[in-house]
């Protein structure tokens, strides 16, 4: 598929990397020649140096042949204009990054309709939603919801005193009966799709799929369940912080936001009257203690500086805050932060690349069983996908034990209407179902890809 990415900042690069590795024909546009030469060296893509709102530049990038144009520069207005032009010049679908709360709160639908945007995307809002999910379920590292909302996947880390340490999966099933499935295990940076004889070790990350109620029950038995956060402290009054605070406040959590810039504090206190705004330096331990960091249930570091987020998060962990979440944008720093003991790391650019990759794959096979949801799990080394079973799926109505699946692929769940099935060998996939598949080291774009 021909995809044009306008703007090669942090998010742009992340998109270019993941789209190029999925095999798309990617053309990148950026006005800065230094950035352009860097991108040409790093990725197998073509670059055009120029402005995304210049019709000559868009022509040079063959916009009339592009199936998808994604504009992710720092300016919302620029993105809107670039997408509008691209659409008028013949691009089939357009995605614009629009992150200013002004546009997002009320006028988004209006903008989307009149600018003919396929998808407006707001990384900060998506990240806030992800953060909110994690705060709701503090025992989990990550939690992903599939389309119907009554099927979820949680990622847990097995601590050294975990009851599951050294247990075979069959025995886990016997000891903790229930309607769930351990569908992926991350060990030493690799993701394994386990079978019944797989032995769990402490330090593993495990992915479990089930209905939300089932997950709560299981986590309670395992002792992983912690109560939902009631008081949350947020460092940095960023856009993500705004969206997160809004979500938290609407579900009755009390929020305290620390921000150095006074004007920003005033803006926030105007927009979020329920939140407590503290104007001060969040890196000062004195201030953190004064504001009661040792008493909050959750701490979220959301400043624009990865390094600052990591350091303050370590401070918060030392004060025994039950759930500490760190926003880290740079991949290499995220790995280091994990080594330092911070386990909940959220990166907006990863979230956005999940969304766009899913969208691109769905566009690619709108004929077959298209991808409804896609999550990169286990630090991106595996994927959990939700497919709509289409007309052409050849293994429909066949019992699962008679289908031979590819190596590293697992059917983790079937959603039929309002019913959720954790599949066994006697179940079958029917037309109209939604199927959740976990795949390690593979890029699936159609449900038929899972059959060997």
């Amino acid at each position, binding site marked *: 598929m021909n995809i044009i990415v306008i703007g090669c900042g942090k998010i742009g690069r992340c998109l270019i990397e993941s789209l*190029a*590795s999925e095999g*798309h*024909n990617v053309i990148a546009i950026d006005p800065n*020649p230094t950035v352009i030469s860097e991108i*040409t*060296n790093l990725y*197998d*893509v*073509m670059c055009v140096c120029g402005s995304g709102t210049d019709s000559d530049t868009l022509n040079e990038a063959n916009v009339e042949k592009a199936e998808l144009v994604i504009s992710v520069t720092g300016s919302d207005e620029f993105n809107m204009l670039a997408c509008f032009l691209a659409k008028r010049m013949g691009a089939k679908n357009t995605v614009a990054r629009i992150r200013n709360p002004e546009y997002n709160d009320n006028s988004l639908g209006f903008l989307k309709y009149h600018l003919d945007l396929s998808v407006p995307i707001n990384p900060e809002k998506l990240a806030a939603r992800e953060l909110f999910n994690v705060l709701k379920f503090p025992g989990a590292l990550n939690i992903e919801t599939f389309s119907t909302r009554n099927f979820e996947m949680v990622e847990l880390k097995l601590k050294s005193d975990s009851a599951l340490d050294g247990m075979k999966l069959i025995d886990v099933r016997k000891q903790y009966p229930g309607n769930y499935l351990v569908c992926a295990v991350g060990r030493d940076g690799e993701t394994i799709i386990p079978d019944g004889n797989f032995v769990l070790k402490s330090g593993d990350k495990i992915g479990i799929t089930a209905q939300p109620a089932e997950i709560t029950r299981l986590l309670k038995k395992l002792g992983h369940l912690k109560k939902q956060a009631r008081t949350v402290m947020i460092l940095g009054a960023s856009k993500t912080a705004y969206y997160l605070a809004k979500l938290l406040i609407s579900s009755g959590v009390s929020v305290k936001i620390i921000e150095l810039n006074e004007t920003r504090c005033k803006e926030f206190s105007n927009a979020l009257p329920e939140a407590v705004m503290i104007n001060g330096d969040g890196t000062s331990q004195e201030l953190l203690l004064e504001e009661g960091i040792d008493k909050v249930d959750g701490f979220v570091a959301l400043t624009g500086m990865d390094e600052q987020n990591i350091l303050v998060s370590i401070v918060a962990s030392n004060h025994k805050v039950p759930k500490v979440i760190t926003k880290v944008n740079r991949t290499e720093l995220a790995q280091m932060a994990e080594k330092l003991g911070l386990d909940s790391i959220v990166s907006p650019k990863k979230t956005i690349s999940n969304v766009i990759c899913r969208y691109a794959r769905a566009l690619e096979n709108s004929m077959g069983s298209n991808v409804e949801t896609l999550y990169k799990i286990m630090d991106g080394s595996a994927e959990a996908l939700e497919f709509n079973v289409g007309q052409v799926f050849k293994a429909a109505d066949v019992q699962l034990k008679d289908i031979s699946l590819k190596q590293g692929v697992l059917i983790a769940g079937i959603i039929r209407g309002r019913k959720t099935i954790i599949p066994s060998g006697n179940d079958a996939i029917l037309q109209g179902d939604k199927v959740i598949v976990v795949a390690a080291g593979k890029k699936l774009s159609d449900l038929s890809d899972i059959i060997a």
Partner: protein
Amino acid sequence: MNYKMVFGTVGRVLAVESVLMLLPAIVSLLYNESAIWAILVTAGVTFLFGALLSMLCRKSSSVIYAKEGFAIVALSWILMSVFGALPFVLSGEIPNYIDAYFEIVSGFTTTGATILRDVEIISKGLLFWRSFSHWIGGMGVLVFIMAIMPKISDRSMHILRAEMPGHSVGKLVPKAKSTARILYLIYIVMTIVQMILLLCGGMSLFDSTVISLGTAGTGGFTVTNAGIGGYSAYCQWIILVFMFLYGINFNLYYMLLIKKAKSVFKSEELWSYVGILSVSTVIITINTLSSTGVLSDTVRHSAFQSVAFMTTTGFSTANFNDWPSLSKALLLILMFLGGCGGSTAGGLKISRFVLMCKLISREFRKMLHPTSVHTVRFEGKQVDEKTLSSVTTYFALYMLCIFVVFIALSFEPFGLETNFSVAVSSFNNIGPGFGSAASHWGDYSAVSKLILSFSMLLGRLEIFPLLITLSPTFKYKK
């Protein structure tokens, strides 16, 4: 430095070379020649060596940087020639290994200079291999590998840039693999069309194939002692037109294919190329008209020789060595200029020449108005200062290298004209020189032949890949 990646890729190159050797083997088989064994043995040895190398260096990571790109290209070209020379030695047709090495380097670098006094004694299979090496070297062997093999690395741009000539190497389409495929497709179609047109002109199948291969790479090996002069005027015109076409940037053909003809006719480089060629043809025609007399022949010879030298092919239809000094001087200048960037031609490249002319004019204007600000524009776009400085640096290094080769050759007893023209001709991958080196370079000593081989490689790879790989600072930069 990712040595495993470098040597693994070089191993792949050798394996591909051995497969390509099967084509000359088939030709040998058709003509029932004993040289087939020499070719097959070489192919076997090369394949074993290449396969072993890539097996031993199974890559752990495919991350490469510019320096790995340089090393891959430089080592591939050197080793490819080392093995490519073997069939000549094994068959006994060029018994001296250094001679054979020179001959095949001259082939791969599309120079077309030969050490053979009599090419007609060489068997057909080996003549085919010689010209086929032009064809492989013209577009580049790593580009070929990129087109047919699974992806080498995400960062294959470093390899593409190191192998393809021109001051700025860009891709036609987003993927390196598709770019390589499109380039080779255009290349193959053009070669076949030329072959058919030559066949229509009454040339034999073997000759038309080999001449087409030689023209495609802008090489210049011929198969008869008479050279191109022995063919009909029609064939000469066909060859002339195709030499001209191969000297044009291949990106423009792609533009034509995707129906963007407008931008093709706006290309400054193309018009400069056409302009320089027409001017030199006119001057040479007027200059040589008195000695030959027939206008049509004079125009043909002048145009042919201009195109042959400018595109660095080096075919000849007339005895240009006896032409007046003005014509010879013009031809010598054309040797320096070379074809367009992104073509199969060698030389300095028109794009660099045009940029330097613009730099000179900017300098003049700056002297007149010291505080004025000028930007240099090329092909409708502003050229950044980094590119400009790399163009002037390249030119300085290019002249320096030619001088060094020239001095090194001056130990030979052939006179200034011969030595200088050979130095220029080898570095720019043309083929013939002036004076006693007009038809063959066999009289040079073994040391000079090695120097010339190196000079040809330097010129084909545009100096940096080879010099950087061989420089002592390279290995410390781990």
